[in-house]
């Protein structure tokens, strides 16, 4: 499933639509500790987290996440939104808990 299909199929809010919306999503990946996420997240993951600060964007770029999904109603702060725009990273948001958001992605991928 591509990032653009994820946007269409899941009812996530689009905070920033990046350049890579035709990127393939490997699988959802959940983690809030940035060092663990950066070390363990496979490339092309749809990264579900509650951390919406500028470091989240840096980790997503460096670890090659295909997009970020902010769960539990988390928001991007202003510097982070600017960074997302600069770096062309797709950031989505949802009120769902992390597990439910990741499960929704997984189910859409395997539908």
């Amino acid at each position, binding site marked *: 499933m591509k990032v653009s299909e994820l946007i269409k199929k899941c009812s996530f809010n689009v905070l920033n639509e990046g350049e890579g919306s035709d990127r393939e999503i490997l699988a959802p990946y959940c983690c*809030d500790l940035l*060092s*663990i996420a950066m070390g363990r997240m496979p*490339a092309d993951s749809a990264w579900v987290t509650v951390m919406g*600060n500028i*470091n*989240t964007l*840096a980790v997503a770029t*460096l670890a090659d996440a295909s997009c970020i999904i902010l769960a539990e109603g988390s928001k991007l702060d202003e510097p982070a939104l600017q960074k997302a725009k600069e770096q062309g990273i797709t950031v989505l948001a949802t009120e769902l808990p992390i597990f439910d958001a990741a499960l929704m992605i997984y189910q859409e991928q395997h539908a």
Partner: protein
Amino acid sequence: MNNDIIVMTYEVPADDFTRAGEASSSVKGKLKKMGVNPDIVRKVAIAMYEGEINMVIHAFGGTIDVIVSPEEIMMILKDQGPGIEDIELAMQAGYSTAPDNIRSLGFGAGMGLPNMKRYTDDMKIESILGVGTTVTMRVSM
């Protein structure tokens, strides 16, 4: 890739999380353009970002030299911070001296140095208390 040796030097600013990651992002972009294998680019980017964050959190910033040769990528991270008292302890996964405000940003899990070791083929830490720390990491091509 040709046979030239390329040296890139970066300043890491102290206490500035909004700019931390710029050096590693820049290196990532340049290595990609040079045609370096994506797995190697990822390893270098992750190891260097962890090092950058450490310099911001613990050491009032510093400098990073990245030396790219046909055989390997070497990163030399140098700071004039407080130094590391017990390197063996600092290398243990989960051990951290990061303050609470850093933890609330999603860091301070005690994974920085272990990640740096894990993603490089060789890592050497030289540290003198009150003088500073130099971390040298190598990733083979």
